[in-house]
Structures are given as structure tokens and as C-alpha cells.
């Protein structure tokens, strides 16, 4: 991990008519971090990722990805990889065609495309099925294809929305190993997940979003230490503690007083 910020946001806010999806989000994530982004359903995690990837414009506030403003999608796309909750793949293509398509769009050279596809398909155990149509794939195989697609062009920042969803234990372990390797090589991983043990194992920093606000942030160990009760030890306990209305209101009033 080095001091250069890969992701930084300043009061990032998103309103949908009368609903506030994200409010005053401030993040400062250095390169090489695995940032575990947690929150209950509807907390604003996907909206945040969509703003950070330039897919949705914020109502107010700013953010930078690899030093580029998110308001200029053209500037940030060479630096990012993105796996949404539903993998963006075509049913009528095979996995190899889909990955070649993505590699071609990223302007990778032919040899790079073929090498990376071969390495990643092998690593995720998908090589035998690479020439079958995606329409015949299981949920896990689709997820693997989407994940390889997000990684194959070796971006500086990777946004992953539930990357281990639907994966068998072996594939889930491969994902964990790959993410650790990526972070070791300086890639920033923005990991949104509901599988708390995975986040606890991988993340160097965890941020918990609740009703659009960041209610807790820090390394998993620091967050666990903050808990008052001694029997609450896991990240799951922290999650439940900070994502209840009472604690949220308590934090909010404390912020106002400060």
C-alpha cells in the first residue's frame, strides 16, 4: 500500500427526486487497498459504485479515480474494471468471445488478449467451457466470466459488486487469492459484499454505509476493538451494531455536537 489515493470522494451525494441514496460520502482510499464496502440492502452501495464508475452523475460533491474526475467518464475508463451484481455478459456469445470482445474494446494487443484469457480461464477452472455459449452456463460460471472480464485488462482500480455470489467454495477461494495478489501488486479493490467473513478476511479497510451515510470506517480489527461489549468480536457484530437506527441517530447527533 502506498500513499497515493486511488479513490477519493468529497461530500459525494446522490438524490433521486425525494429519496436520498447517498449523502456526504467522504472516502480516501490509497492504492493497493482492498476496501470492503458494506451496508444493508438499499443502503446506497450500488449507487456509490455507479457514481464512482461514471455511470451515474452525483447530485453534488466530487470524486476522483486514479486522479481523474468521475465527471469525465472518458478519462476514468482506462483505469477501472467493474463487475456489477449481475455480470455484464452476452448470452449469445461464448466466454472466449465475450472476453475477446472486452479485450478488443480495451485496445489490448492480440497476444495479450489471448494470454490473459488463457491464464484467467485456467485459473478459474473455466477453460473447458470457454467455447460454449454463455446461455448454457450456470450462475457461478457466469459470475466467473464477469469477474475475469473485470480483471483481464489489469486496471488500477477494480469495483466488484458481490464477486463471490454463486461461486463454489473452490472458485470463491481463487477469487480471494486473486484479489490479494492484485492488491499486493498495487491494484485497488473496491469490494461490495454481503458475505462478511469474506470481507473480514480480505479487506484492509472496511466502510459501512447505512441509509446513504458512512457510519463506520477503519480496518476490521480497529472496528472490532471499538465495540463496547466484549462478546462482540466479529465484523458481523460490528455490522449489526452500526446499522441500527438507534446507533445511527446517536452517531448523527454526536457528529452535530462535534
Amino acid at each position, binding site marked *: 500500500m502506498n500513499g497515493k489515493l486511488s479513490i477519493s470522494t468529497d461530500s459525494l451525494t446522490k438524490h*433521486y427526486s425525494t429519496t436520498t441514496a447517498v449523502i456526504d460520502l467522504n472516502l480516501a482510499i490509497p492504492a493497493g487497498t482492498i476496501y470492503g464496502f458494506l451496508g444493508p440492502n438499499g443502503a446506497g452501495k450500488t449507487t456509490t459504485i*455507479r457514481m464512482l464508475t461514471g*455511470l451515474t452523475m452525483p447530485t453534488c460533491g466530487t470524486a476522483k479515480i486514479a486522479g481523474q474526475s468521475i465527471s469525465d467518464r*472518458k478519462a476514468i*475508463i482506462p483505469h477501472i474494471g467493474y463487475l456489477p451484481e449481475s455480470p455484464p455478459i452476452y448470452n449469445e*456469445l461464448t466466454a*472466449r468471445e465475450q472476453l475477446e470482445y472486452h479485450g478488443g*474494446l480495451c485496445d489490448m494487443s492480440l497476444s495479450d488478449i489471448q494470454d490473459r484469457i488463457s491464464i484467467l480461464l485456467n485459473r478459474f477452472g473455466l477453460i473447458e467451457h470457454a*467455447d460454449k455459449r454463455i446461455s*448454457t452456463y450456470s450462475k457461478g460460471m457466469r459470475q466467473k466470466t464477469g469477474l475475469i472480464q473485470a480483471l483481464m485488462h489489469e486496471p488500477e482500480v477494480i469495483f466488484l459488486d458481490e464477486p463471490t455470489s454463486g461461486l463454489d467454495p473452490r472458485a470463491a477461494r481463487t477469487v480471494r487469492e486473486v484479489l490479494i495478489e492484485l492488491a499486493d501488486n498495487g491494484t485497488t479493490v473496491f469490494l461490495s459484499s454481503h458475505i462478511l467473513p469474506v470481507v473480514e478476511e480480505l479487506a484492509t479497510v472496511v466502510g459501512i454505509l447505512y441509509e446513504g451515510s458512512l457510519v463506520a470506517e477503519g480496518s476490521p480489527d480497529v472496528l472490532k476493538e471499538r465495540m463496547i461489549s466484549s462478546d462482540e468480536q466479529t465484523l458481523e457484530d460490528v455490522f449489526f451494531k452500526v446499522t441500527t437506527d438507534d446507533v445511527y441517530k446517536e452517531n448523527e447527533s454526536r457528529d452535530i455536537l462535534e
Partner: protein
Amino acid sequence: MTQLTWLWHSIQIARTAQTRSWRQLDRSPPIRAVIAAVLFSLSVGCGIGAYNIGEVIYRKQAVLPFSSIQAATTAGFLMLLWLFARRASKGIEHINPDFLLTTVPAREVALGVIFFVYSSVTVPLSLPVLGVAIGFAFGTRSPTGALTIVVAISCLSILSALLGIWICLVAELLTTLSPRVRRYRGLLSTIMFVLLSVMYFAVIGGLVPVNFLTKWLNILPTAWFVDLGLLGFSEIRSGLFRSLGALCLIVSGIPFFTVMTIALAKRVWQAEPVNSRTLHRSRSLVDEGLSEQLFSGYVSRATLTIARKRWLQERRVPRGLMVAGYILLALPGVFLPILDAGEIPGISLVFFGFICATGSGLAFGMELLGVEYPVLPMTLTTIHGQQFIRGTIFAGVVISAPITTVGVIALGLGSSISSVEVILVALTSVVLCMYSVTLACAIGMGVSYYEFRVVPLPFTGTAVHAEGGRESFIRLGAVVILLALVCLPIFGGYLSVISGPVATVLDTSIVVVRLCSLVLTTILAATISVPTYRLAVKLFNQYSIP
């Protein structure tokens, strides 16, 4: 548990599916009320019309066109057959047999499918049919006739439903068992659509005599149902033997096809799909293929990859071809002037170029977001607008330019205009193709992410993402109109009623007027393409996913 529990289960399956279907339509109560009012008015109108016809026949002021009604009945039967087959395909998916088969016996599910498909097609039609039957019976002063008409139409529709569902199930079974059939199903359907369109134009163009067609439609057993329907009318003589033939068809056909359909449905649901691995293979989108060799020095890899992916998609699911199928409706604009003049006039060449340009715009530009929809988050976070729009335009122009050029030149060989002019028309048409795809891209990029929904692609058995509602037709119309506006100079130049007076006023020949119109159109199309392209790029770069 009574003996009819199985029937009750089937009815319940159909009713639940029907309720879900109505709710999916997402119609508000006022719209439903309007639909009901329109249907009621239509039924009353049909009844009054039928009453008047019946009265005219009763007073012997006219004779019932028996032969035409028989031909129309057979044509109606074929249409119903097609409608039921299509609805069955959607109905089986809608009814979710996987869940039901773990709850009730397959026979009950199959019967539920039959009831659902039959009711979903016939319920909206039943009121107008009743109106016609009652109106005609009272007009001819033969109340029993209403009963025979209703019986004949009901039985014919039941037969067509059973046969339609059976055909759909046969297709399902074949595609489950044979990857080869599965692969060519979409293509065969497209070819059939084109053939039917050609047949339609052959009939309206007078190439196939209507009498010949009517004669064949009258021979089929479905025409016997007209005799059965008119059996209750004392004033009209109908064939007793043909009526008996229809009754025999009903008595034997309905149980036979019900049993066959149920048996086939069980077979389809239990069939093991054959592994398609041997037939699937990857077609590289980046290797040194023909397109790479031809264009790699001129277009970027990203642009070429977009185009190659689009061609591959089109090869597997001919979505663009289906959208471009609308232009077949405009084909009379090419061949009617030829039939009228006895030779190939210049306007036919120009109109052919216009049709090709429209087709390429609709095929490649209009649906650019719909085609990309499943991967839009990836596309938007991987490339920028220039690459995407260029790739789409390139995909369209590379396909449409050779087809347009060859078509125009082939037509030009049979016309009296000079070869230089033919080549100029071809060149103008290619520029129009480029303009059309660019225009369609700009218009197609205006569809909001919210507007897309999954819709079945006709004839192909696949579902795609597309903009729903009338807005899609408005966009389609906008492409055609804006393209036609740019083409006004050449249409004017090649219509003698316009080019003649213009030549006289300018004191020049008609050929010069035509050539000037070609140049003007080319300049217009090329010039307007630039801001249109910029608009499309801007819309892509600003496109957001909520």
C-alpha cells in the same frame, strides 16, 4: 377429491396464468375501461353490420359470397394457427412448468397450458364474434343460425388452438433434441418471414392470380366449417355433406389432438437436451480474420471489435434483420413503377437506394442500446462514445454498402439511364446508408435505461431487450422521415413531374437536373452526418445508468 379434480386443477392453472398475464400488461383501470368500451362498441358495430347484411340477403337483394367466405375462413384458420403457435411458445414459458410439474401430474399442466393459450387468444375475440352471429341471425330471421355460427367458429378455433400448440411443441421438442435444429430455427423463421412477405407482394402485385389462391383455399377442409355455420339458416343453402365432414373433423379431431398435445407436452418436458458442445465454437473477435486484414490499418481495434461483435450477434440472433424487415412493406415503391412503365425507371433505382439506407439504419443504428443492454455497464466503463458510435456505423456501412451498390447496379443494368449515372446513384445510396445509420444511432441513443424491457423476438424463439410501447415506433418513424427529407432532392430529380418543369425553368436537360439532385443529396447527407455523429457520441458519453 372428485373425479374432476384434474380438470379443476387445469382450469386453476390457466386462470392463474391469465391473471398474471393481465397484471403484467400493467394497464391502469381507465385504460382497461377504454379497451372494454372499444371492444363493446366493435361488437355492437359488427352486430349491426351483420344484421344489415343478413337483411339484404333475406330480402334477396344480394347473394352471400360463399366462395369468398370459405377462402377467408381458411385464411383466418391459418392466421389463428400462427397466433396460437406463437402464443403457446410464450404461454409455456409464462406458466412455468418446472414448478407445476413438481406439484400436479403433467397431464393437468398440459391441459392448463391449452386452456390458457386458448382463452388468451379467444376471449378478446368472443364478443365481436357473438355480435356478428346474433346480428346476422336476426337479419336473416333465422335465430338458430346464431347457434350454428357460434358452434362452427368455436370448434374451428379449438381445432386451430390444438394444432397450433401441437406445432409449437413439435418445434420445442426438435430444438431440445437437436442442436442443429436449434441453431437454424431463428434463420428458418426469418427466411419464412421473407418468403411470406414476397408471397404477399406477389399477390398484391398481381403476379399470382387471386382466383387461383381462392380456389386452393376453398378446397381445404377448414372451408367446410362455413357450411356448418350456415346450416341453421333456412334462407341460405349450405352443403350438408360438407357440414357433416366438419362435424366429423370436430368429433375426431378435438379428442385426437388433445391427447396428442398432452402426450407431446409430457415428452417435451421430460426430454433430455442433447449436448450442444460439438456445434458451439468460438469465433474470434480479435484474431487476424478477413475483417482484420481489410480494415485494421484504417480503424482502431476497439471500433473494429464493436463491429465484429455486432456481426456475430446478428449471425446468431438476426435482430437487425427483423427490424429491417419493416422496409419490405416499402418494396412496392421499387417494383410498381417498373410494372407501370414496362422498364426499370430511374426512380426505382433511387427508391431502392433509399430502402437500403433505411434498412441499414433500422438494422444497425436503432437498436444499438438494446443490443448492448446486457453489457451496458461494461461498455460504458470500457470505451468512449467515439469508438462505440464509429464501430456501430462501421458495422452498418460495411454490410449495407456492398448490398446497396450491387442492387442499384443490377437494377441499373436493366434501365435506360447511363452507366455513369447508375454509379452516381449507387454512390449516393452508400452515403445515404452511412447517414441513415448515424441518424439512427443518434435517435437510438435517446432511449432511457428505464425504457428497456425483455420482449420476444418474432419467429426466433429468443427474447431481447428493446424499448417498449409506441415510442419505439415514433423513433422508427423519425428515422424514416428525417432520411426521406434528405432524399427530397433525388426524389424530385427522378420524378418527371418535378424534374421536367425544373429543367424547363433552368433551360437545361432532365439528366443534368437528375445529376444535380444526386450531388445535392450526397452533400446534404454527408454534411448533416457530422453533427448527427457528434450528437450520438455526446449522448453515449453522457448516458447514465440510474
